[in-house]
């Protein structure tokens, strides 16, 4: 089904996707003329495929559950924020806070992601084919971030148990984030995510692994200079 944002309002389109007509059981949608609309495809909660042809604004695919969303363009702030499951694939670049606080699912960004990519992530897998900006994976709790390009300043600042893999350079590591030994299970994890993201020309052992030193997990006055 084709949904045209020039002809229908945001509310109508989101409502259609949030409340699928079970009699028709149409689960394949194309949205045209998004023209930077905010909150497009937010709160989807069933299995379906949605292709958005064009650029979108903030919070595209916010809190997604189960849906497979492809954006053939760039995305604004907070794409797939707090996603629970499903897949969001951005074919262009992403603005800040991509995948923020997301609990699950897969976010693929073919271009670059701006600052705070994966901030407070809680279980999502994020694959960025380009580079990520400063403060990415800030306070990241759980999940995996794979960056095929470079990472900006303060990567993984104050992170918890998330795994970060970067192929290129890291401008600086944030508080309590350290480079860690790469084990087979980590290589397998990268391999799996690269495969899911249809990235074929990069080998898992090209990446370095970063994680928490766990020194700031319980407050200690002797660590105060680290904050």
């Amino acid at each position, binding site marked *: 089904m084709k949904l045209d944002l020039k002809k229908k309002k945001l509310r109508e389109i989101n409502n259609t996707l949030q409340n699928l007509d079970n009699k028709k059981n149409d689960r394949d949608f194309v949205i045209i003329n998004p023209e930077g609309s905010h909150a497009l495809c937010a709160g989807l909660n069933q299995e379906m495929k949605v292709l958005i042809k064009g650029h979108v*604004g903030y*919070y595209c695919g916010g809190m997604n559950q189960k849906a497979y969303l492809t954006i053939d363009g760039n995305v604004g702030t907070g794409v797939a924020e707090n996603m629970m499951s499903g897949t969001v694939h951005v074919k262009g670049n992403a603005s800040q806070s991509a995948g923020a606080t997301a609990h699950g699912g897969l976010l693929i960004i073919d271009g670059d992601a701006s600052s705070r990519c994966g901030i407070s992530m809680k279980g999502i897998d994020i694959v960025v084919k380009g580079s990520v900006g400063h403060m990415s994976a800030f306070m990241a709790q759980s999940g995996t971030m794979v960056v095929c390009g470079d990472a900006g300043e303060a990567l993984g600042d104050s992170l918890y*148990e998330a795994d970060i893999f970067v192929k290129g350079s890291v401008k600086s590591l944030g508080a309590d984030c350290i480079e860690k030994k790469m084990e087979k299970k980590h290589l397998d994890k990268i391999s799996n995510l690269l495969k899911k993201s249809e990235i074929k020309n990069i080998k898992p052992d090209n990446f370095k692994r970063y994680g928490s030193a766990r020194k700031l997990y319980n407050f200690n*006055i002797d660590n105060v200079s680290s904050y």
Partner: protein
Amino acid sequence: MSDNKKTHPRISWTFDKYTNSEIRRAAETGIYDIRGGGSKRKLPHFDDLLFLGASMSRYPLEGYRETCNTKVTLGTRYAKKPLELDIPITIAGMSFGALSGRAKEALGRGASMAGTSTTTGDGGMTTEERGQSKNLIYQLLPSRYGMNPDDLRKADAIEIVIGQGAKPGGGGMLLGQKISDRVAEMRTLPKGIDQRSACRHPDWTGPDDLKIKILELREITGWKVPIFIKVAGARPYYDTALAVKAGADVVVLDGMQGGTAATQEVFIENVGQPTLACIRPAVDALQDLDQHRKVQLIVSGGIRNGADVAKAMALGADAVSIGSAAMIALGDNDPKWEKDYNKLGTTAGAYDDWHEGQDPAGITTQDPELMKRFDPVAGGRRLSNYLKVMTLEAQTIARASGKNDLHNLEPEDLCALTVESAAMARVPLAGTNWIPGIKNKK
């Protein structure tokens, strides 16, 4: 030496016993003091205001006979289903994690029995609280611990938390000793580690962004439920105006007497403004935007009785919210646990180390044995009783002021006992027609 040549030992006003003990504690431990609750210092407050009552120029209503409406509807601006409450006293957000599941259940029970709402808090929505709460407000906090769209759709309203009166600009901390398996699972963090709640939201930075965030929340919930914005008592005029601009249905304004589960003592006592000082600027903002009574204002921070409720509403609030007082109603700081408080180095009425998880009353703990001390059914009944008493008290004052609705109370019903409170509340100093800062007031 005879007695008349001795002077009485003089304790410094500046270096009093508490101050000295804090200096010694800091010197011994090397860490600042963390505690729960709100500001404990003496601040200008509702006690500094008095109702004038009816007189020759005002006609009172009969105390127990004539009706005085207490109902309030919250979220009339945009929501398809505004929150309709029997009383204008709501229960503030307190997290599962800071409080036990049983305590959250009791808050839901008490609020529902009294015809009002309760609020989740950091850490997500528990089944106990949702199950027992007729009206449950789901908080969207910077940490987004436990935030998920299924619970969002179960909520009767959504409250975006920008700040708390106890710590404007500050985040939170739940110390490792309170992180049980269940709390850890809900927050997606390892058991036993200190859990930091961020001070700012991860996916928006200012009111222009917030407007879009609110659009997203409305789209996810089908524009059905009201969106509240909770701000600390920092810059109440501008914070309220910006909340309205961002699209709030309801503004919750929390003064510095408002409690927290845990933050630094220095933060609680030195950042923010007293509740009394915040109300009039917030009402100014609503009136300047022609949104007073259209965007509802909920005031919290040190509300203790029906007189406080009536005073806040007379100054322009549509409703109030209670947190610390609700906990006391449940049994927090009850003298019956005095021996246990003494073992913790404190006394009933002063216990505020809620973050340590050793609460003798079994309310602010995740310890299975301590939690058993608290009965959620009895606790809910106590809270309901207390809410009803507050409502009756507020009605008593309103009737005596000639008002058949709590929302008809007005600043002209009040006078102030101090110059400071007169200036903050913009009501005349008792016995005068002087409102400091207001010229030509007759």
